């Protein structure tokens, strides 16, 4: 066997096992969600497919799954949009204007983003109670924006820094105001970076658990991660089928978003990786 073929084989095998390793929990989730007996992996129990769990999750009033899904989508989308808008405006300022203490500001923002969530969750609860916002969307959207903003700002700053300043100058000379340069030139040119940052912010908010657990009390604002976690206690047993079915549905929006923006995101993630 030539070295080249061996290399190819090893590469294929490596890719295959990595793929399998990453995907196996999802496969398990998928099968458990549509299996009559959730513990079907035991050899003595046959796999009998059923859609009853999916049906229960989607139709059962008492589970409120659709409410959770709606809450999650709204909260995550609002957080992502707000985050991206604020972060890209800030990134534009940071990369284009000179003001004192810029470096210190960026380092401070990075440091703040490292604070663990737990350290502020108590205070956040008191704050939201005082505001009367517990169990509403703003109670989640504002902390999520604050929480994802530092990372988004850093990603977008490095992205904006790679857009040549001559483009700004050209825009200004062509008669634009600074704001117009940002909206008409920089945003469209930075679209891949903005989309991937937006998706990242969306997924972070979509998966967030601790704040959602503390700041919501029922289905009117509760998001999916917390909602699914509470399935366990509902009927005195652990409803694995329903949990897995719900989890399966939950992955769908993220997959759809990724597929829609796939081309832009790949551009965004790989751009600048090599010298252009």
């Amino acid at each position, binding site marked *: 066997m030539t070295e080249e073929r061996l290399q190819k084989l090893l590469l294929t095998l490596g890719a295959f096992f990595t793929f399998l390793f990453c995907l196996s929990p999802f496969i398990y989730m998928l099968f458990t969600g549509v299996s009559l007996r959730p513990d079907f992996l035991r050899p003595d129990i046959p796999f009998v497919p059923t859609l009853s769990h999916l049906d229960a999750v989607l139709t059962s009033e008492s589970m409120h799954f659709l409410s959770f899904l709606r809450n999650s989508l709204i909260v995550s989308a609002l957080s992502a949009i707000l985050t991206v808008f604020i972060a890209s405006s800030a990134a534009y300022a940071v990369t284009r204007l000179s003001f004192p203490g810029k470096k210190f500001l960026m380092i401070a923002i990075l440091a703040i983003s490292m604070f663990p969530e737990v350290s502020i969750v108590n205070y956040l609860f008191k704050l939201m109670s005082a505001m009367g916002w517990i169990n509403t969307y703003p109670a989640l959207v504002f902390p999520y924006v604050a929480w994802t903003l530092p990372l988004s700002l850093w990603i977008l700053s490095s992205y904006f820094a790679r857009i*040549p300043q*001559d*483009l700004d*100058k*050209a*825009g*200004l*000379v*062509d*008669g*634009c*105001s600074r704001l*117009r340069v940002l909206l008409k*030139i920089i945003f*469209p*040119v930075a*679209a891949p970076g903005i989309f991937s940052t937006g998706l990242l912010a969306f997924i972070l908010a979509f998966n967030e658990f601790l704040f959602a657990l503390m700041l919501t009390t029922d289905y009117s604002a509760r998001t999916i991660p917390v909602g699914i976690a509470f399935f366990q206690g509902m009927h005195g047993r652990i409803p694995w089928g329903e949990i897995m079915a719900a989890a399966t549905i939950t992955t769908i929006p993220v997959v759809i978003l990724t597929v829609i923006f796939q081309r832009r995101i790949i551009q965004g993630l790989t751009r600048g990786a090599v010298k252009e």
Partner: protein
Amino acid sequence: MKLTLETCGKRFATIRGFVHAVRNISLEIGDSELFILLGPSGCGKSTLLNLVAGLEGLTKGEIRFGDRIVDSPEKGLFVPVKERNVAMVFQSYALYPHLNVFKNIAFPLEVAKKKTGEIKKAVRDIARMLEIEELLGGKPAELSGGQRQRVAIARALVRRPEVFLLDEPLSNLDVQLRASTRAELKRLQRELKITTIYVTHDQTEAMTLGDRIALLRKGAVVQVGTPEELYQRPKTPFAATFVGSPPMNLIPAEVVEEKGRPLLTVDSVLMELPERERDWVRRLGKRKVLLGIRPEHIVISESSGKRTISGTLETVEPLGREYLLHIRVPWGNLLVLSEKKKAERGECVGLSIDPEHMRLYDPDQKDD
């Protein structure tokens, strides 16, 4: 429109203190003149262009477009870039990558809220002028460097600006394309009669293109004049070596008095002083001076005589029509242009200098 720059200064605040990018520059640029800002990198020429455009503000002095003051920190006046009706072309082209060529050219008109029909006509006209009509549907990424620069020029000229600014527009093009685009730029500028400032570090470009040239160094003007003036009468040693290719030779020389009139010695060879420099030498009152002489004004003879400097031929560069000879002399190297090869490598040659073409400089002279 006439442009006036009066004692303009620009300093930037950095962590390590102030950087003076432009110091005390005064220039007058005539109506529809093609004016060149020439200088090595970091001489402040691009900053000066940004100041005229209004992308930066002065810290001192005044800029006037015609009679209108556009920037004067003393009077608290600053007209922002979008109200100055200037257009700019960049070395990096700076085309908007997300818009096609038509949209790129139309962009300044759209920002100015012109009517659609008007925009279409203006874009077609300028595209025809620059011969890029068939490119209008393409994206900038699909064009070659030369085509991109044409689009950038079209975008700048489409709204008939009063001042046309170019920041090293040809530096990214290959040599042949550069020469042809240069000629075309000159033709366009003559046709449209727009006051133009052109920034470059390439002295050939400056010489071939400009009506007048301002040579800059370290944020200050060294010399302003026509290309001929800069070539024939450079004011300082820096101007002498920066303009012209191959550069002017600078030879250390000493002034000696003989029978009441000053003479020059180079490496103990006595030489006549040109008439026009005698008063200057007397006024300077120093022994040591720098003698500037262009490579084409040194004559090579095979034998050395009383009035010739002797040297060794080191390298011969054939330039086609003539040869560039590097000649080793006791104090360094001399460049000589000669139509014939005259000698072989390693041979001794005699060099004589025509006093008419000598330029003399004070070796301690500062450029600013």
